[in-house]
């Protein structure tokens, strides 16, 4: 199902272009620039992923139905998938838009000049790779690279771990050196004189696996938190030893993914009630396990709060 969506809509779930790009319209981000902020649609997709996974989890629990992937195949044949999934509430969608705006505003604050490809922006294809569909991934990656070339993109600012890993490491691995640089917004902010003023806030840090173990963005994340004047606590499984949120297998088995998230939540809860994440997938899966008990915020949400 997800694969089919990537083929048909170039995204793992069918989402209207307006939903993907409205944040940038609001900020009047220019279109044609050599430097672009790249969302890969991941933050925008979170509310849709959440409702889809909740739906699949319900099916997984039912006897005799079994695995999500299988269900997807069957469903695709009978009904339009988009009608099955409840549309996420306006608040949830707005939250994701605010995150993207916060990142863009923070980058503007430190005078980074960048554009955005709007509805032309392609998905990174990273899910294809995670599921072992490497040939499909390679084809998809080629499309993305060609598009960047056509649009004259020289530098890509990524904002989530999965797209960062795909563009920075997987693309060169599959296609050889690319014509554009890839830099994550956390790196950019950490190197700048970016400052914020938030007094009295404290967070337990949940490092995304990819930032901590694949991208080595450990100190950078902390230096931003410090620059915002926010205090932070390190759980036992932190930094290079961080613990997965379970997200990567949520498509395969929502229940198992939730179990992994519950273990992580069990640990994090011992250190405080506010959790800092820096990945939309971590956010979605940890949120599913934590319910209303803990406050989970994306780094960019904290940035937004501390900039004003």
């Amino acid at each position, binding site marked *: 199902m997800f694969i089919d969506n990537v083929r048909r809509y170039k995204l793992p779930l069918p989402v209207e272009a307006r939903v993907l790009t409205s944040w940038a319209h609001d900020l009047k981000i220019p279109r044609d620039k050599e430097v672009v902020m790249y969302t890969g649609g991941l933050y925008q997709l979170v509310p849709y992923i959440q409702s889809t996974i909740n739906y699949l989890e319900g099916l997984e629990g039912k006897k005799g139905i079994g695995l999500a992937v299988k269900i997807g195949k069957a469903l695709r044949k009978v009904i339009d998938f988009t009608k099955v999934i409840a549309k996420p509430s306006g608040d949830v969608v707005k939250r994701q838009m605010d995150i993207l705006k916060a990142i863009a505003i923070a980058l503007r604050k430190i005078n980074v000049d960048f554009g955005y490809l709007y509805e032309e922006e392609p998905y990174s294809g990273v899910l294809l790779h995670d599921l*072992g569909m490497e040939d499909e991934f390679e084809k998809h990656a080629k499309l993305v690279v060609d598009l960047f070339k056509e649009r004259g993109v020289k530098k890509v600012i990524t904002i989530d771990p999965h797209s960062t890993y795909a563009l920075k490491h997987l693309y060169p691995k599959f296609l050889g050196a690319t014509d554009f640089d890839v830099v994550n917004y956390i790196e950019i902010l950490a190197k700048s004189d970016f400052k914020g003023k938030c007094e009295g806030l404290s967070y337990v840090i949940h490092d995304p696996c990819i930032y901590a173990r694949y991208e080595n963005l450990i100190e950078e994340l902390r230096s931003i938190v410090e620059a915002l004047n926010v205090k932070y606590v390190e759980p036992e499984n932190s930094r290079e030893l961080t*613990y997965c949120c379970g997200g990567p297998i949520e498509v395969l088995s929502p229940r198992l993914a939730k179990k*992994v998230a519950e273990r992580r939540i069990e640990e994090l809860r011992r250190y405080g009630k506010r959790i800092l994440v820096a990945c939309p997938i971590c956010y979605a899966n940890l949120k599913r396990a934590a319910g209303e008990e803990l406050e989970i915020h994306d780094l960019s949400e904290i940035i937004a709060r501390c900039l004003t």
Partner: protein
Amino acid sequence: MRSAREIAEVLLKALEDKGLQAGLDKSILNSIPLIKGTLKRNPYIEDLAKRVKKAKDEVLGNIEYYIDKTMDNIRRFKGVAHFAKTREEVYKILDEVVGSEKMVVKAKSMVTEELKVREHLVERGNEVWETDLGELLVQLDKSKPMHTIVPSIHITKERSAQLLRELGFNGGVEEVREMIEFVRKFLRERFVKAHVGISGANSVDANSGAVILVENEGNIRHVTNLPDIHVSIAGVEKIMPSYIDAICQAMVQAANIGTYPPTYLSAITGPSSTADIEFIRLYGVHGPKELHVILYDGGRIKVLKEGIFADQLHCIRCGRCQLECPIWQLAGNMWGGEVYGGPMGVIWTAITEGIEEAAPLALFCLNCGKCKEVCPMDIDIPNMMSELKRYYHDIRTS
């Protein structure tokens, strides 16, 4: 090839297994701080690990040379050296060395699990006892080892008491101390009577043929010392280029399971001997009269040549990746093949049972990278998992 769905069902079933869940929770809770503490108190282990990795690179890059060298040196010290390419060849050697109607005591060893040595010897009419407490429980439970070092984590004390009743234990379910006393007495009688002791090997020194074994219970000392014949079976990847390197590997392994220094570290070079009368060396004194070392290929050499899973042969089987993996923490070795489970176990399954067995298991890898992070040999398990995922998809679509 099993489907993703079938694997998911196994994993979800593991979540419902209360004994397994309790055992996993306790093992994780107790072992991880212990291991971290051990490594912090003994920072030189990290340097030793690097040394071991380098030594392994040397051996794995010249495997045929090192197999020959090891065999020559086993013979030089009056051991009997065997090379077995397949399981059947191992059985043939065992049939000659052990025969039938013998009492056999066994040390815990994953390669003998892989080879189903116990089952084979029983089939040939021998009486075979696992002597590691956990492995004895697994033998009685007729289940499979759930962790490389602590095979019985899925068996609660209540279940342990119940299993030991088969052997005549009549104490209470809370009396773990009594259970140990019972097993100690029960197995002592077997150790003395046993004709053959069978062990694995933590490492084998190519220069002397010395077999290195690490343990805490003391059973391996009995297995390798009391019977007239000691047979050690080692995967060819256990060969190390020097005596010191072989010992280092055992030290790194012990530290990464948190029992460091281990209670016993044995280095066995040849059968027992004396030269006390006129300096003439004679073999077979208090220890075994015969030492057989079987170097087992079982697909490993092919894997080294093909490259995809070659990195896994650096594995020192400490099981650290298992303890730290979020999926293993939920399902133990139920996430695995017939013998090996967890991150390293999925790749070992590809090597020993075939890629079709391992590929659907790999789909459930989170690709979170924790296994590589904690691996003392820095084995890139996530990368090999990706290869398996790719294989699964290629087969399903073709």
